[in-house]
Structures are given as C-alpha cells and as structure tokens.
C-alpha cells in the first residue's frame, strides 16, 4: 500500500462528501434526527394507565382499595361507572384499559373475614400493556390484602423479598433505549454512507479513469473508508453528548474503550456498505440493499428492543451474525453497567471478525476490471 495514493483517494473522497448535500445529510443530520426522534418516541414505561371503576360496594373498604390504585402512580381513574354494561363501553372505545369491579358484597365479606372478591377487566387487544397492567393491579390488590390482615397487628412475614434494581435503578426505559439506539442508528448510517461511494463511481464513469491508474484496490477501499470512519466517530461522539445532556443517560464505563469498540464496529459496518456498493454497482440498488441488510436486523435482532435470551433458537442463531447485536451489548455495557474489556472481550472479538469480514468482502468484490 502506497501512502501518497492512499491519501490522494482519502482527500478526494473527503472533498466529494463535503460537496454532496445528500452525503452531508446522511452523515450529520439524519443520525441526530433519528436519535432525538426515537429517544423521545420509544418508551416502554407504562404509567398512568387509564382505568375505570365500578364501585357497587360504596364502602370505606372499597374507597381505600380505589385510593391505593390511584396513589400507586401507575393508574389514572378516568371514570366511575354505574352499571356493569358500562364496562363494555369504556373498554370498547378505548377510554379505559382496565375496569375494576367491586361487588356489593365486598364490605360485608371483608368484615366477616371471608375472601372478598374484586374483578379486573382488561383490554387484551394490547397484550403487552394488559399484562403489565394486570401485574401492577395484582400487586396493589395483594398489598391491600396484607394491609387488611396486618391492621392493628405486627406480624413478621416468613419471607420477604427486598428487591433492588441494578444498572438502571429507576427502571427508566430511556436509559436502556438511548445506548442501544446509538448502536442501531450507526449500523444503518454507516452502511448507507458507504453504499453510495463505489456505486457512484461506476455510475459516473469515474471508476474507469481510476482503474487506469496504478492505484491498488486495497488503496481505493481503505482510502475511501478513512473519511467515513472519521464521520462515524464524530457521530457517536455527538450522540453520546446528546445522550448524557438531553436524555440524562449515565455513562459509567471507560470512554476510551467505547471509542475503540466503536472504531471496530464502524470498520465492519462501513466495510459491509462498501461491499454492497461494489457488488451492486448502482446507487439506487445499493441503498436499498444496505437499508434492508441493516435496518431490520439491527432493530429486531440486536437485543435493542427484544431480548435475545427469550428468542426461539432460530432467531437466536440469526442474531449472532448481526453486528449490531455486539455493539448494542457494548454500548449498554459501557453506558449503564460500566463494565470493562474483561466482560466485553467476546463482543470485541466478534466485532474484530466482522471488521475483517466486511473489509475483506469489500476488497474481494471490488474489481477494477471494466466491462
């Protein structure tokens, strides 16, 4: 590899990016836009679930139970119903996700020591929210039951779970999303950026002039990569600063480790884009292939949204060839857990392999032969 030729290619690519509005938009505007958009839009926290109450008991006990729902913070009471038939209406039109039915016998049963029954009606059309709401409601009801038993007495329960959540103490889903989001966005942006670069040369005919010079294909691929690696590192730096300041995500690990891992990841992702570009030879086709090859896998199979541990084995196996999976694990690990290379070594090795494969494929497929 010759340094003069390498820097000539890198400089040329840099100048072209600087003058191409589409590349500039992809490189600098889109990542920030996506991060802000998704950072605000995606939230798995379920708060203020709309609920309605049908209180047929109208007793001190029933009011106390309703009060404990309200004060939990998870539920907002949007209606007090008069008839059982109303429950169907509010669940049907979506004005409530859950209806709590307290039967007329509630106070009497409670007073006599019999098991008092209440009914929870849930809107199961959004299964995820329904499950979470049900869990919250169960917890509130059982807590209330404990309070009733313990009223006026002190009894030590045989087993008591004292839970504490580590790494994301308040279980803010934003803390989990933002680091993963950086990884997902960078997989897409990196591949899209380089998907254009070789195809453009074929389309404009400049490849022919380039191919007639003594430049080696290794120099073309590496030289073109240099400015994009710079852009990628810059993007991740900006995203990190945004995450820390705007989204208040903690950064507990080593910034240098994050930078090194980011570099490895970028080499693989940019190499993949370049491979697609060299193989497709058309900007349009390469963009579409790059989008399909990165967007869905990065979103669905990286562990960003869906936990890989609970996936069926086919998807689990598939996720192993999604580079974003390893980078998501790196960003989550470094941002939230503050773990070091000892824990992330496997992800690091996986990314070294991806970098080698991505660049290797790009160099292999990129032939200077003109037909």
């Amino acid at each position, binding site marked *: 590899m*010759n340094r*003069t*030729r390498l*820097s*000539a*290619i890198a*400089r*040329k690519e840099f*100048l*072209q990016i600087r*003058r*191409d509005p589409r590349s500039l938009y992809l490189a600098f505007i889109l990542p920030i836009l996506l991060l802000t958009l998704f950072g605000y839009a995606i939230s798995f926290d379920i708060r203020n679930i709309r609920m309605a109450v049908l209180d047929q008991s109208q007793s001190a006990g029933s009011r106390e139970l309703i009060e404990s729902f309200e004060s939990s913070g998870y539920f907002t009471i949007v209606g007090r119903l008069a008839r059982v038939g109303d429950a169907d209406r509010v669940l049907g039109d979506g004005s409530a996700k859950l209806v709590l039915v307290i039967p007329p016998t509630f106070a009497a049963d409670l007073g006599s020591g019999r098991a008092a029954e209440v009914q929870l009606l849930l809107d199961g059309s959004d299964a995820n929210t329904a499950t979470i709401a049900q869990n919250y409601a169960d917890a509130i009801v059982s807590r209330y039951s404990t309070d009733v038993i313990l009223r006026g007495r002190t009894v030590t329960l045989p087993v008591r779970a004292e839970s504490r959540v580590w790494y994301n103490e308040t279980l803010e889903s934003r803390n989990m999303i933002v680091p993963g989001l950086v990884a997902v966005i960078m997989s897409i942006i990196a591949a899209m950026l380089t998907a254009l670069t070789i195809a453009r040369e074929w389309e*404009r*005919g*400049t*490849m*022919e*002039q*380039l*191919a*007639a*010079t*003594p*430049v*080696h294909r290794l120099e073309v691929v590496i030289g073109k990569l240099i400015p994009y690696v710079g852009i990628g590192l810059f993007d991740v730096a900006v995203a990190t600063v945004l995450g820390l300041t705007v989204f208040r995500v903690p950064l507990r690990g080593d910034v240098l480790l994050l930078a090194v891992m980011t570099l490895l990841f970028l080499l693989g992702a940019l190499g993949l884009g370049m491979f697609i570009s060299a193989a497709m030879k058309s900007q349009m086709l390469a963009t579409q292939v790059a989008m399909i090859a990165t967007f869905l896998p990065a979103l669905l199979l990286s562990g960003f949204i869906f936990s890989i541990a609970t996936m069926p084995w086919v998807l689990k196996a598939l996720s192993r060839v999604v580079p974003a999976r390893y980078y998501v694990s790196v960003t989550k690990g470094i941002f939230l857990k503050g773990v070091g290379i000892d824990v992330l070594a496997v992800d690091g090795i996986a990314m070294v392999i991806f970098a080698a494969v991505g660049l290797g494929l790009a160099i292999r497929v990129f032939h*200077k*032969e*003109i*037909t």
Partner: protein
Amino acid sequence: MPGADVVTVRGLTRTFGDFVAVDDVTFSVSAGEVFGFLGPNGAGKTTTIKMLTGLLRPTAGTATVAGRDIAREPAAVKRQIGYMSQLFSLYADLTVGENIELFAGLYGVAGPRLAERRAWVLKMAGLTEHEHRQTGELSLGWKQRLALGCAVLHEPPILFLDEPTSGVDPVSRRSFWDLIYQLAEGGTTVFVSTHYMEEAEYCHRLALMNRGRLIALDRPGRLKRLLDRPLLELKTDDAPRAVAALRAVPGVLDAAMFGRAVHVLASDRDDALAAVPAALAAAGRTCEALEVVEPSLEDVFVALVRREGGARDG
C-alpha cells in the same frame, strides 16, 4: 522517426459470452508513433484499448506494452501509460486543481515536480485562470483537455486516447490534435481511436477495424491506394435513389453516398462512364456531373468494411 516497438499485440482476442468483441488481432506500434485506430461503432476499438491499458483481461492472445505483459503485469503497464476514456471521467464535483492533485497523487507525482507539472497542465489546457472552478462547469473541449492533462501528469512514454474528441466542436478538436502532436514530438507514443476521417489523416499509421478484426493497417497515403479500382464521383438530383438504382448496374462494384454526391466504385473506368448515365436516365434521375476522383480515406474505409461483410448493427 519510428523507433523500437513499444506495443506488440499477438492474436489478441476477447469474448463476452458468445460475442467475439476482438478477434485474433495482431500488430505492433513503434516508439514516437501517432497510431490511429479507425472503425465503426462496435468494431472492437474500445475493447482492444481496454485490454492494452490493463482494464480488461484478454480471453486469448498476448500483448506487451512498454515491455510489460498486459495480462501478467497490469499494474506495471498502468505506471507506463496515460489513458483517457471515451466518456468524460474526471470528477465533476472536484475543481480543476483538485483533479490534477488527485491524479498526481495516484501517479506518484509529488513535491517540486507536482508544482511544475500542475503549471504545465493548466497552461496546456488553457485553464490557468480556472484552476478553482468545478470541473463539471467547464465546456466539453476544456474538460477533454484537462482529462488529457491528467493522463500525462506523470509523463508516460505511451498514451492511449479512446475517441478523445467525440462530441467536441471542430475548433476544439483541431487544438486537441495540436496537443497530441506536441506530445508526439516530445517522444510520447500516442495510440488514438477515432471515427472522424479527417482525424485519421493526422495519424502516422492507421489500423482499420471491423467486427472485431483488423482489416487493414498502413500509412493513410498507402491505405488510399488499396482501392485498386476506379472511383467516380456523381452529382445527381436525388442521391439516395441514384445509389439504389446504380447498385443493380453490372460493372458497378459499389455505390455509396458521399456528402451530397455519390461515389461509384467501378470494375472498368470507360464502361462505367457509359453505363452510369444510361442507368440514371432509365431510373429517371439526372446526371449533373460524373468524373473520376482520387479516393479519400472514407472511400477506402467504406469499401473495406463492405467487403468484410458490413458493420455490426448498432
């Protein structure tokens, strides 16, 4: 003037599937020659040039350029040559100066030599005032001169130009050829393809290609003598109809449009001078003038291509 052979081609062949683009071509080019490649579209000129510049691997046959084998050492060949492709292929979004710097970098021209070569190219292309303009904004004539400049930045001994003047206006074409001669006088071997007849006349030697085969190779003056039959020029009121009528006349080997006139290749001069006016009269066409003329390169070219079965479609 010509020295040792710098390009030798032996049985060079390239196929694309069943299509034989270049078919068993053999020739050589001497140092300092302006070697022309003439032929209709699809004749295999561009494919041959791409093989000689190391852009395309031959299917069969061998060739050496500056003593290097094109199939085994394409990288070494590329260091010894300059190449300018048929279509404008510099970077339109870079400025004139940036294009020069890019190709200087790729050819390893650096330091004081770069400054000197850059000044030379700018002056040669007449772009000294426009160094900071984006290349895409330049006129085609200017673009082609800049492309030529970028191709000779490293002062290669051999220069390959693939239809460098196609689409360029006649004045720019003329000045482009002045540059080619300037380079040739400096000792550069120039290998140029064209489909303009008047440009072909400027070449020291001319290779005629048709359907992938080399059908003639000689100096332009001697190529014209290849036509060993008398050639008549006819002025008539309707040249296309006259051509159709004359092709059926015995003793007329060929009839073709030549500008607004018709050129008739005859087997015998006196027979033709009698038979042509008679045939025209029978067809209801006028015969305003009929005389024997010296064949031009175009006549030779048309006759040879027709003898070889005509040009390829498209």
